[in-house]
């Protein structure tokens, strides 16, 4: 599978409505690199302005790479990780 076919784990769709901030922090990952994930299942949890939100897996696949580890900060639009679809 080429790197191009990987699907990004993005945060734009789940950004908390009330949040003014454009930066957040990864609180928890619920999968490790190399493990199977199912579309829609919570993949990780982020915190934006004290509010928490779950980031669902975009597709069925394998968590190929975690880009932002727990406690890492990121900005709106960033990719938190990559899924290799099955």
């Amino acid at each position, binding site marked *: 599978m080429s790197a191009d076919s990987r699907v990004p784990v993005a945060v734009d769709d789940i950004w908390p409505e009330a949040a003014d901030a454009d930066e957040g922090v990864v609180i928890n990952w619920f999968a490790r690199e190399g493990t199977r994930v199912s579309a829609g299942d919570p993949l990780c*949890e982020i915190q934006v302005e004290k509010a*928490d939100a779950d980031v669902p897996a975009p597709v069925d696949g394998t968590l190929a790479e975690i880009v932002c580890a727990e406690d890492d900060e990121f900005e709106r639009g960033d990719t938190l990780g990559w899924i290799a679809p099955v």
Partner: protein
Amino acid sequence: MSEQQEVVERELTMSRGMVEAIAHEMRANDEVFYMGEDVADYGGIFDSTEGLLDEFGHDRIMDVPISETAYLGAAVGAAQEGMRPIAELMFVDFFGVAMDQIYNQMAKNTYMSGGSVSVPMVLTTAVGGTYNDAAQHSQTLYGTFAHLPGMKVVVPSTAYDAKGLMHNAIRDDDPVVYMFHKRLMGIGWMPAPDGPKTPVPETDYTIPFGSADVKREGADVTIVTLGLHVHRALDAADSLAEDGIDAEVVDLRTLVPLDRETILESVRKTGTLVVVDEDYRSYGVTGEVVATVTDEALAHLDAVERVAMPDIPIPYARPLETETQPQAADIEAAVERTQ
């Protein structure tokens, strides 16, 4: 793990493990409901009911007035009618305003009735310090609840244990006090140490009460502990290993019933006991565990140490709280004193 068993990859925080069990039981049994302050729209101050309102609505995930005597007592009454209420005391420190319902009603009715009444409820409550919330919001009170007869007392330290123990707590026909440590829940604003987040099977499963879990095997010293301090003991054990000391860490998981046999078995092997507790030192968990060993395995016991909160209310300022709370370094030092 045998080969035919499924490998569990999904990891959950402790709060999610606990909530998954509650949700499963609520789907399976209409008579299970949850009452507490800020458990509905807020999802529990410490995420103990996060997401449950969406699925079950306000009828079954009930916010209640700040009236602990009334709603904890109402849980007792509903349980005696055969329902399976789960009632949350937001901080265990608030037990004082409702203690009669807890220990004179909930805990005693089964026995006082000669077994003709049962109280199948779960009292969930947040325990513990580490974040400078001072004397009225930081206690564990493990020993207090374990001391008063009539309550099964559960203290999970990982997501896996939290889920299996919660399934057992809800299905159990007796009152179960389920004490979850705030620092272990995996809350964004109170980061957990490494350890409580574990793989958790999606299916339901029950962990029996009274079965301690050896979280780390070792030959030289037995560290008996529970809750947050399981993880501090594991940290201490890693560090001790570098000095050539091989520590065994026993996670009690429940205080009532207490798995005395696992403690004794470990001490018979290591000859050395260190008991670590986030509750007050005197008249509590550490004394009970040490007494268990001196009663039953004194001949095997070469050295013993206790590490616990001193007998003072928990102070606010960071250096003061740190001084009073058992740290991994305190556990290491206690182990080294036994060698």
